[in-house]
Every structure is written in C-alpha cells, then in structure tokens.
C-alpha cells in the first residue's frame, strides 16, 4: 500500500514537473511568430506604479512600448511597415464630386473600401492583437482573416443575391481558442443582419450565431464589432469641418510627440472631421473621426460617453500612398499597414493591432467561404 501511495505521489510530482517545465518554456504560439519581449524585465523600470495606482510619467503601457521602441527588438515582421503595390482603389470620383458627398457616403466608401476590401478580388492576412491592461498583463491573440468582396463584381451570383462581403476569421493563438473560426456574410440591405457561423472546436460543429452585438468588444480587445462590421444606419453622421490632420501634443496613447508622428498615419492629409451619433442607446454617445478627403481612410477616432468624457481613442492601421501613374496611365497605390493602437482611456486598457501578413488578389477559392471549409479546414 505504501509503495502504491508513494508511486502516486511520484507520478503527481512528475506531472507537476512537466507542468512547471512547460510554463517555464512558455511555448505558446507558432514558432514562426516572434513574441514581443518582456519589456518589464531586463532592468527596465515597470511602468505601472502600484503605490499611486498610476502609470509612471502619466504614460500608458502602450505609449511606454512605443516610446521605448528602439530598445525593443521586435523583428522586421512586426516592426517594419510593408507595402503592397498595384492595388486598384475606387477613386472614381473627381475632387469636385467628392466634395459633394454626404458624410454617410464618405463613411460607406471607407468601410467598403478598406473594411470590406472592395478594391480587390480577395484578401488573406494575419493579424496580431496585443492587449495590455492596467496591471501590466500583456496578452496576445493571433488570427488569420480571409475576405472576398462582391461590391465591385456586379455580375457575380452573390452580388445579385445581395451579398456585399464574406469574411472568415480563424484563431491561431492562444491555445484555448485555437481552431475557433467565424464566418460572416454581410449584405447590401441595411435592414438585413449579418449571417454569422461559428465553428466550435470543443463541439466539433458549425453553429449559427445571432448577429453579434456590435457594441461588444472584439476578442477582448479594445476594438468593437461596430469598428469592424459597421452598419451605416446605426449612426447619424454630420460634417463638423475640414482640416489638415495633425498629431497633437495631448493626443492619444501616451506617446511622445516624435513617436506619435511615427506611428499615427495620415499626418498632413486633408481630412473631413465627421461626427457620428448613435440612433439608439449605445456604448458611446458621440464619435469623432478624421477621414481622408481623397481616399476616405480614417486616421483617428475618438469616442465620448454621455458625460462628454473621452472613453476610446483609436488610430488606423492602414493608409494609402499614391504612386506615379503606371504604363496604362492609371495611378498605382500602395496600401500601408502599420500598428493600430487603440486605448480604452477609462480603464487604461490598450490594444495594439498589427497586420503582419497581407496578400491581395490571391488564388484563394471562393469555396473557402462556406460551412464546408469550417467543418473540414480544407477546400
């Protein structure tokens, strides 16, 4: 009996040992992805002062990361911006015509163009979200996304059936959510909700989901579904003014001014400033955004509550750069991905979104946008 019990204890110790070893090795994500190093070790002063319950120097952790960027070796795949040339973008309107657009039309073009990938046959990419809470907990989520848009495909069967865009998001990390995937079909009909399917890994089946509440946060980040899956009629829009987009000293994310310019897109671009107010009770009362007057891209977004307090600041991860006319006389554009910092100001929670791979007009078959693919993982 004693021997048996001793064996049990030894086995338990072995299990605990394996457990501890795995924890120490911290082998958590795909090996080809580089992890952000522990910025709070190696002699660095912790940015959060527990005695005063405030961030040192009034800077947020994300600001701390950016302001110490040179000290952090993130690797080219994370740090470097990259470009994809030759993308068509729907600049079908002249400057005069664009000036006549309503704010609803501006927002629709922004969402269709970049959010719903209207300017490409399809898109596949990988995105990483780093979230940092006020206690300094850094968490990482990695996913793959696939898009196909029918906005500029008038002859397609889907377009005739009212489908605007199909989108798949598949979680790669962390382990608990690995394999989870969602598929969303969006429609031209503003009154028709998105169709959403989810593949639940523990149940091994595809489930239909109700249209996710667009007020909910996306995967625990500071992004919200209404940032990603925007339905225009949710808001009333109005133009506030036109101005050249500038980064301000008291701007967002606790960044120092020189780093703000480095990480915020669109500085110096002519923008519309558009106010959006929800038509019904919403998690914010007012949203101000800066939209590029040439390509509609949103560079910054501020959300306020009913008391007028700033609750969320958000920067865009994309910008568009115009190149010289190509041989056909049309303009070539580069779309640029960079870091997309979002901060929920009220609770010092930050998300750093980073699109680290992105490919347009690939051979991705449209059969991928089906429950069949979600079931089998093959197409």
């Amino acid at each position, binding site marked *: *009996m004693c021997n*048996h*019990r001793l064996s*049990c204890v030894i*086995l*338990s110790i072995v*299990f605990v040992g*394996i*457990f501890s070893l*795995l*924890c120490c090795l*911290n*082998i*958590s*994500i*795909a*090996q080809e992805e580089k992890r952000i190093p522990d910025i709070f070790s190696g002699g660095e002063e912790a940015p959060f002062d527990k005695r005063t319950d405030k961030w040192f120097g009034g800077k947020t952790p994300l600001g701390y990361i950016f302001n110490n960027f040179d000290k952090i070796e993130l690797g080219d795949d994370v740090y470097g911006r990259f470009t994809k040339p030759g993308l068509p973008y729907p600049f079908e309107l002249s400057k005069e015509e664009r000036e006549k657009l309503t704010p609803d039309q501006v927002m629709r073009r922004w969402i269709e163009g970049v959010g719903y990938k209207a300017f490409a046959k399809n898109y596949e990419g990988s995105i990483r979200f780093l*979230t940092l*809470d006020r206690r300094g907990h850094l*968490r*990482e989520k990695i996913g793959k996304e696939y898009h196909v848009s029918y906005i500029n495909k008038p002859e397609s069967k889907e377009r005739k059936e009212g489908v605007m865009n199909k989108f798949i998001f*598949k979680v*790669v*990390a*962390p*382990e*608990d*959510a*690995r*394999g*989870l995937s969602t598929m969303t079909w969006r429609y031209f009909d503003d*009154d028709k*909700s998105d*169709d959403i*399917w*989810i593949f*639940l*890994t*523990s*149940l*091994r*089946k*595809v*489930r*239909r*989901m*109700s*249209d*996710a*509440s667009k*007020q*909910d*946060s996306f995967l625990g980040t500071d992004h919200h579904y209404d940032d990603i899956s925007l339905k225009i009629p949710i808001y009333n829009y109005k133009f506030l003014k036109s101005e050249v987009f500038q980064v301000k000293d008291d701007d967002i994310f606790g960044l120092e001014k020189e780093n703000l310019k480095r990480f915020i897109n669109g500085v110096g671009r002519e923008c519309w400033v558009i106010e959006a107010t929800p038509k019904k009770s919403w998690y914010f009362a007012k949203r101000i955004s800066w939209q590029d007057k040439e390509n509609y891209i949103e560079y910054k977004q501020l959300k306020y509550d009913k008391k007028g307090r700033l609750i969320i600041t958000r920067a865009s991860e994309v910008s568009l750069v115009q190149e010289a006319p190509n041989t056909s006389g049309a303009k070539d554009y580069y779309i640029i991905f960079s870091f997309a910092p979002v901060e929920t100001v009220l609770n010092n929670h930050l998300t750093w979104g980073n699109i680290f791979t992105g490919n347009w007009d690939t051979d991705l078959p*449209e*059969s991928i946008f089906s*429950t*069949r693919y979600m079931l*089998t*993982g*093959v197409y």
Partner: protein
Amino acid sequence: MKKVKFVKLRRIAFISLVGFSLSGVIGNTPVQGAFHIGNLLIGGYLKNESSWHLQRPGELMKSQWQFNLELDYHLSDHITCFLQLRPEYEAIFKWSSHGMGAHDEWKDELQDNWFRNDDFNPLVREAWIHINYENFEARLGRQIVVWGRSDGIRLLDMVNPYFMREGVLDEDEDAKIPIWMFKLRYWFTVENGLELLWIPRYVPSVAPLKDSPFAFQATKMLEGELIPMLKSFGIKFKHSEPGTSISKSEIGLRWLGMFKNFNYSLNYFYTWDDVMDMVAKGPKLYTFKPDRLSIFGGSFDYAFSHALFMDDWVIRGEFAYYNGDNFINMETNQIEERDHFDVMWGFDKNFFVDYYVSFQFAQSFLLHRGDDYSGPGLSAIDSIENQYTLMLQKFVYDDRIMLETLICASDEGDAWARPRVSFEYTDEIKLTLGGNFFWGSSDDFYGQWHRSGDQIFFEIKYGF
C-alpha cells in the same frame, strides 16, 4: 425469444446532457498551428480536474491529470495525418472496470494501465488520415463525428458512444469514445454535400457501475438486485457483440445543405443501440446484446434579423424518428419494440449587449404506447417527455473571465444546475471553478444524483 425484465437505459439517448457546453473557445481544440516542425504541427494541453463532494466536505470525487498531445502532419496539399494521444492519471476512481465503479479514498490499485489503454478511454484517442481531392474527402481511422444541432441533447448525434464515468458531467470531448470508421464526403456544390459513414465494429457506451456516485438507478437495481438474484439460481451471463462482418456494421448517411441561408441536414443512421439489452438465451444463460436501430431525421438552423418583435436571433431545430427501439414494459416485464419521435427547438440570442442566452426545448413522443415503460431513473416514461435547457453566459474583465450557468430540467420537476467561472490567468493558463447541483426524486433522471452527485469542482489547464 424470451425477454426478461431489464430496466434499460434507453432514455439516456434522449435526456442525457453529456458534455453540454457552448463555450467552444474554452474547450479542447484540434491542432491548428502550435509548434511547427516542418509540416508537423504539435499542440495540446496539460490539465488537472478535481471535484469535492458537497455533502461530505473534504472528500474528493475526482482528481484527474490529463495530458493531451495532438500531432498534425501535412503530408501534401491533399493528405493530412492526425494523431491524438491522451494519457491520464486518476487518483480517485478505481482503475478496475474502466474506472466506472466505486471511488477510493486514494488510489491503491496503481496498475500498469494507468494510461487507460482500452476501447473506452484509449491512449490513442484519434488516429486518422484525411484525403481531399477537389470535391471529394475521405477520413479513415479512429475519429469522432458529430451530428445534429442540439447542445447536449442527443437526437441525431448517435455516431460515437459515450464514456459516462461521471454521468452527464463530462464535456463531449472527454465523454465521446472515438471509434474506427470510414467517413466519405462528396460536395456537389460549395454548400451541398453527401456524407457516408461506415463503422465496421460496434463499441457500446459505458455507464457507471452500481457503486459509483454517478450510477443510474436502473444500474443499481440491475447490478444490485436482479443479477445477483439470477446468479443465485445458477444463471450465467455473457456479452454478445455483433461482430465485424459487413452485415453487422453500422452505416450513416447525411445530406448537408444550404438553401437561401437556411442550413439543414437530412440524416439516416442504421446502427446498433449503444446500450445493450439483457436477453435470455435459454434457461441458464442470459446475454447482453445490442438492438438494431434505424434512425431517420434532420436538423436546421436559421438566423432572423427581425422576427417576433426581436432583432437578431437564431432558431435551431432537430428531429429524429427511432424505428424499433426497445423499452421495458413495466406491466409485463418484457422488452418491447416501440418507435419514438424526438424533436428539439433551440433559441439563441444576445441580450443587453453581451449576455448570451441559449434555450432548448425537447420533446420525445413514444408512439403506439399502451402500458407503462420505465426509464433510467426507474420512473415510468410518459407518452410525451419534455426537457428544457437554459444557458446564460457572459464574459467580463476584458473577456478573461467567463461566467456561465447551465440549467437542465424535465417536466418531472428534477433539474441539474452547473454554475461556473473560468479565468484566463495568462494566454496559456486557465482556471475554472464551479459546481454541479441536482434536484428531484431519486426515480427521476437528474434527481437520481441528488446529494450523491452534488459537488464543487476546480480545473487548471495549461495549453501549448
């Protein structure tokens, strides 16, 4: 053929809520991108699950260490191999009888099978090769196949048998027994395809023995009273499984389709009952053997943008017609074949931004009913049996904490509640605390575990 009284666990098929969980993000996951070594992907987890008896504080009901390792090798664009190994060590359940019997205070029978390498809880849980070529798919090997659209309520999801060491408490992923089968699919269009299953060898479900805290009342009566009494008369018992000839195999057909965003399936399963009947084979011999069953059915789901004064909700449905199922006539003590028709309606919606609510209502209609028939809790089965499930779920603290309550009840007044809280301490480490509480008469399905099954549980899991 003479049949004797045997309280069969038939109704488990309808009312067992094994592995009820919608928290798909929390569950075990196939390998999809962990370590890469060339074309080999490696992932898995290590976890401990422990539970304590509520009525006898300090008494462990379970202390289980489980190491799950999944290997996914992409041989080519068209061929993938998958292997799942899951050794486990359980300190409380006795090893004998697949851990289905009584608990120990602490393990004193540490045998060489602590990896559970048997048919019901195998070391190699899944091992298959997947071949896909254009519209054709084949998956050959030991695997788990899930049918239907209900959660926990088994109407069509009868392909894999269940390892019910903890009654209804285990998650599907733990409770389902992987079996050897051939699965073929052909897609006629992107969303419309036909699936064929061929299962050459029968594997039964395994229910807890009479000394287990999760034993069914029917089992207690059978093992504790009937069989000892018959044995005292010199009667012998043996198991008789169908064998492996083609005529003894199980065949499944499923049509998967979508019509204008209406997802549906049509199913047919020619199978053996997961639960064996005890049948007299002569004056001195009784055999446990399964019954042939034909199950016809279908399922669907649809999302409404606006309907019944509500925005954005989902309706799910599933129905199954069982042809030739066996029941115990409580008047004559004979097994009789009866058909029954089971139907489930599900309703899912998010309320108040992020409160997820899932409600299911299921009914089973026993057709051509004359006398009373008994169920697993020993009470008589009604002509129409009703089941209700309600799940509430909310994520808080940046989605790191999941609050969830599951309530399952029947029209007999018995119920099971499982509140639980999960906390993601890091991306890799997750902690779960919860409880299982049963109410009702000992003759009713959930009531039979009142007090004996009440527990609090704790789980720690490291994923990689």
